[in-house]
């Protein structure tokens, strides 16, 4: 995917830009509720994850405000927005990792393949097995490369050596790491370079064939070369997996994603096809953000 970001010097706004946008962010900052601008293209997609009027509080502090957002199957969806806008919180809500934080309260609904995630009957552990997650900082476990990749299978009690080996190779190939580590599968994963470690974490995340792959700024701690490799990898995984990626890097969102959601202070502002959002956003605020005027 190759999207050219609009040039701020020669503004070529979308048709709707400026019409309903003025003062929107100021209103959000005042705490007023603002309807999100959602593009029509999304209606035509089949959604694997449906988020509806989802709100979240850390103790007294509200972090997410009535987010409604559907993630299309098999596509890469990027969440962008300035620091503290709640993108990571939203991502971590999808696999209920926020449950581990004391004092978290939610409202609204989130459905994975039609089934409510925040249902009492749903076991968070079983739920997480259906999703893979890659973190901002690579977090390989203190064990061998092999054991790292097959960890999700190990905790399910898989003992069959052949199955484990097959999964390990497939995942490492999937994460474009196989050729680099195939001779050192049984050495410590902590001996790998930073970029390799992050790809190892991706291999681990896709080992159990998840329905959704969550990525929380996977490249922010990596050098440009390693970032390139990860982006290529995301490109290769497109279609095979549904990917929800949080990123700080506008170019990265433009390069890798099919759809982009722009968030601000816990609210969804605009959500649409990446190309449109970066070149002809409907809202002036989105335009300002993607062109680097603020944020």
């Amino acid at each position, binding site marked *: 995917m190759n999207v050219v970001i609009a040039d701020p010097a020669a503004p070529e706004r979308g048709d709707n830009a400026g019409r309903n946008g003025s003062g929107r962010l100021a209103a959000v900052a005042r705490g007023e509720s603002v309807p999100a601008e959602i593009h029509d293209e999304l209606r035509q997609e089949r959604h694997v994850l449906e988020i509806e009027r989802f709100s979240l509080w850390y103790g007294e502090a509200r972090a997410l405000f009535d987010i409604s957002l559907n993630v299309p199957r098999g596509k890469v969806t990027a969440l962008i927005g300035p620091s503290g806008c709640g993108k990571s919180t939203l991502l971590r809500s999808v*696999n209920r*990792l926020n449950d*581990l934080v004391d004092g978290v309260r939610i409202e609204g609904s989130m459905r994975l393949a039609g089934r409510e995630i925040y249902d009492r009957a749903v076991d968070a*552990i*079983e*739920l*997480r*097995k259906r*999703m*893979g*997650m890659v*973190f901002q*900082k690579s*977090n*390989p*476990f*203190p*064990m061998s490369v092999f054991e790292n990749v097959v*960890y*999700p299978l*190990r*905790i*399910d009690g898989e003992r069959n050596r052949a199955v484990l080996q097959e999964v390990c190779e497939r995942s490492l190939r999937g994460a474009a790491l196989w050729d680099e580590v195939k001779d050192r599968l049984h050495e*410590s994963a*902590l*001996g*790998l370079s*930073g970029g390799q470690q992050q790809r190892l*974490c991706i291999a*681990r*995340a896709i080992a*159990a064939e998840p329905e959704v792959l*969550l990525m929380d700024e996977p490249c922010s701690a990596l050098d440009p070369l390693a970032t390139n490799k990860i982006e290529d990898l995301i490109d290769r995984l497109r279609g095979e997996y549904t990917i929800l990626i949080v990123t700080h890097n506008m170019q990265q969102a433009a390069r890798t994603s099919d759809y982009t959601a722009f968030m601000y202070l816990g609210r969804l502002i605009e959500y649409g096809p990446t190309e449109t959002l970066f070149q002809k956003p409907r809202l002036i605020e989105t335009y300002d953000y993607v062109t680097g005027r603020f944020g």
Partner: protein
Amino acid sequence: MNAAAVPPPAAPRRRSGRDSAALLAHGEPAVWLMGGGLVLALAMIVGLLVFVLYQGVATLWPRPVERIALRDGSVHMGEVARDDRYRPADHVLAALPEDTAAAARAALAAADGWAHRRLLRTGNYELTGEHFQWISDYQIAAEDRPPWAVVLERMTWGRFYGEPVAFHVLHYTDEFADQADPAERRRLRREQALRMAREMEGTPSRRVMFQTGLRLAAPAELPETATVAAVVEIWEGAESAWAQFAAWHSGVRERWQQRRALEKIEIGRINQRREAGRHRLRSAELRLERALAAGGPESPAAARARAELDRQRIEFGRLDRATEEEFLRIRARIAELNRENSRFRLVLTTAGGAAKTIELADIVRGYPANRLTFGQRLGVYGARWREFLLDDPREANMEGGVFPAIFGTVVMTLVMSLMVVPFGVLAALYLREYAKAGPLISAVRIAVNNLAGVPSIVFGVFGLGFFCYFLGGHIDRWFFAAKLPSPTYGTGGILWASLTLALMTLPVVIVATEEALAAVPGSMREGSYACGASKWQTIRRIVLPRAMPGIMTGMILAMARGAGEVAPLMLVGAVKMAPELPVDGIFPYLHPERSFMHLGFHIYDLGFQSQNSEAAKPMVFTTTLLLIAIIAALNIAAVVIRTRLRRRFHAGTF
């Protein structure tokens, strides 16, 4: 830009130009202070270690033997233990004989009132009643190192210093027990002795005599009526006597070792079998008593118990006879070994001129101290270290080895570690991972930390009351009723000592483990949760392995503290002398109820409880050195394991 709006540039803040302020600001004095503290700490630690090392290493070195003749005519011989300078008081000089006092005054005047004296280890306790003798230089008339002075380390009475005069080898005549007539028996023995004497004739360096009763008689003056017990070959002169000693001694020692093995292992096994049989019998009696109390004399249970008791009585009678036979057989073998060993004797004279005959079996080691080459000296030194490390103690622990103490220390420390680490880790896991933070948990944590400050003797008292008397008492009542009233588990033992020390070191392990758990990065836990792992799986597979080096650190600290602890052990099982090890070849091989020896307690016992503290002092240093070495070895082993673990978890992160 409006120039008027710009505030006038503030005058630069006046810096105090004093050097001291700058010095303080740079922290230079703090660095010096820290360096000084480190140097002081190092100096004390290294000083102590070097002192212990020097003293401990020198103890077993064979020193030359000095013979010192005093002006009062007495002669002393022995090794110099140490020396110092002192100011003799006037009444000491006044008590001296006239000429000695005059010489002493002259010497003192020349040395500014200071006198030099040496502590001579003179040994020969059974003759002199002294182990040591202070000798001041002004008392000395003459001094030399006699070439044939020998040092004998004996089984009893401590060391002996003297010069060999003769070596006796006895050849016993037969008893002729089948001859009923005593006169005929006497004649036969006599004839046999004369025949043996004739065969021995012809070697110039030895004489042949006959032993009748306790006396020796030359062949020519053998009384007609005497019964000849043995023909005695006598090698005379220091050199040939010593050559014979060297030739026979190792064989005698070997027989002595055999004898000890028979006494310790074989007889121990027999006693153990008899004991077991006796307990079965006693158990049957107890069962009968219970059956009678429960159902009266007519009940079927009582009848069964009675039958069982009868069976056990027969069984025990059989066992009794069998073990008695075996016991007599072993006693006969021991008597045979003793008789063979009693054939060899060394005759010596002391420096004072007294003659002394010592049986070879009584001598552990002997060497001519002034004739040894450096290599031989090293050999004696090595042999002494081997004995020290591998043998049982003798003579109230002052001589011989400390093997049981080494064994007890190591086993106790390992058992303690095996107990304390799982408990401490489980407790820390609950505190850190599962318990909700709150006032209760804080209180628990404070209590655990305070536990580390409780005096160790308090733990000893607790261990005695709870483990020995309460737990052990109940175990005895339930499982070892037949042995009561003598306690099995109801008294101090290595298991209870280990548990007591485990309790004492628990806070160390809990605190270290908590720290280690807290240091596991949250990102790793999250990664594991995100893979769908449960909390327990995350702890078991990620958190615990990652925290292992920290847990090992806790174990190392606990081991170091536990291994060096003495006070509580005195209450819960460490004893002065316990030749029976807690692990041996007698079923059930592990004896956790046995009391044990401990190096720390051994040091205390040698240093403060022994009758001959002067002789014990060097052994205190040697034992201390050994204890430090063992603790260091245990620690190094743990550190090596920890480093391996660390390398696994931290390799190549950047």
